């Protein structure tokens, strides 16, 4: 399992975008740190299928900034998954959300990789609010579906 955690600040960007942090778990666009307005938001292509997996578990996630038709596609054998944002409010109300979400992503990966030849790596980023006011953190993960499940403890610890 290969991951790293970074702290960052999105406050100025949110002001520029005239958007507030969502209080639910949501998908973030790939270019949240650089986009000038929400119409420029580009989401990862796999969001289309992954959201259907969330929906099956009665957990439809919103796309931050509203619906989009712009999806980045990479014709590479690695799997690029969309950025998922965990809000402090959502996790306080339902601490199970992290493990449920990781299980959904993991079964999506399992289904996507079934029948494929060769080793494939998944790339995904999780963003979350830390309990320290105004602080945001992100975890970058590169690895297989199994390793993904063990991120739960790491995310929960980092949110404290």
């Amino acid at each position, binding site marked *: 399992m290969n991951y790293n955690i970074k702290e960052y600040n999105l406050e100025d960007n949110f002001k520029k975008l005239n958007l507030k942090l969502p209080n639910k778990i949501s998908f973030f666009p790939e270019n949240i740190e650089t986009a000038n307005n929400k119409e420029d938001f*580009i989401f990862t*292509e796999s*969001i*289309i*299928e992954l*959201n*259907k997996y969330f*929906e099956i578990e009665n957990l439809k996630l919103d796309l931050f900034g509203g619906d989009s*038709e*712009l*999806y*980045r*596609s*990479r*014709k*590479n*054998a*690695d799997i690029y998954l969309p950025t998922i944002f965990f809000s402090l409010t959502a996790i306080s109300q339902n601490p199970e959300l992290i493990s449920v979400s990781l299980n959904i992503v993991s079964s999506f990966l399992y*289904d*996507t990789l*079934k*029948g*494929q*030849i*060769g*080793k*494939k790596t998944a790339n995904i980023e999780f963003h979350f609010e830390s309990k320290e006011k105004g602080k945001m953190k992100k975890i970058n993960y590169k690895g297989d579906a199994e390793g993904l499940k063990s991120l739960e403890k790491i995310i929960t610890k980092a949110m404290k």
Partner: protein
Amino acid sequence: MKVFIENPNLLIKEFNEVAQIAQKKTFITIGIEIQKEEIENIKNYNQKLSKLKQDFVHRELENEANLIYCIENSLLTIQYELQMLVNIKEDRMSEAWGNLVNAQVIYGNVVSNSVFEIESEKGYLKRLENYENLLFPHLFFQSAGGIIKKSHCSICKEKSGKCKHLKGKLYNGELCCRIITEMELEEISYVENPANKHCRVLTITKNGKEIDIMTLREKEIKKQE
């Protein structure tokens, strides 16, 4: 084939027999004329299956239609495997590669739609992977990336994300795909592990000569008259 509408288990039995006969001919030592004949046998059998699938679709028997898809495409995989062996014997290496990739992709779709994990499926996928490593040189590939601006579902034609159909899954005997109708190209990269193995580097230039990567022969440049 009408009997299969009443009892799909008989169809599975017949498929196993047809596949077993065909797979006995998927060796490089088998006579080329025998392999060509088997390719025709599979084509003819698949034509009958196609009609049977239409019948199941018409009767709205989705599971049965999906079963035919899997049987049809498993046989198509063997057909491509045989075609690859024939191509190699005929010194048509580029076509041989193309047919191997077709076999890998098509069988991958069958495996990803299987309800159960069957050991023989993994074994056959491994066989298709082994061909790649044993029969062909190390190849380099290209991979394109870009922004999808317009796309829709192949099953219901709704905009991507607006329906419940899952890409790569079967619906009434049909594989769900995403149809991209507008895309802005961002980059083309050289990669070792591509999504599409058809997208490969064909030639290299060495000492001013264009060399075919697959055969190491100098590529003939057609003169314009």
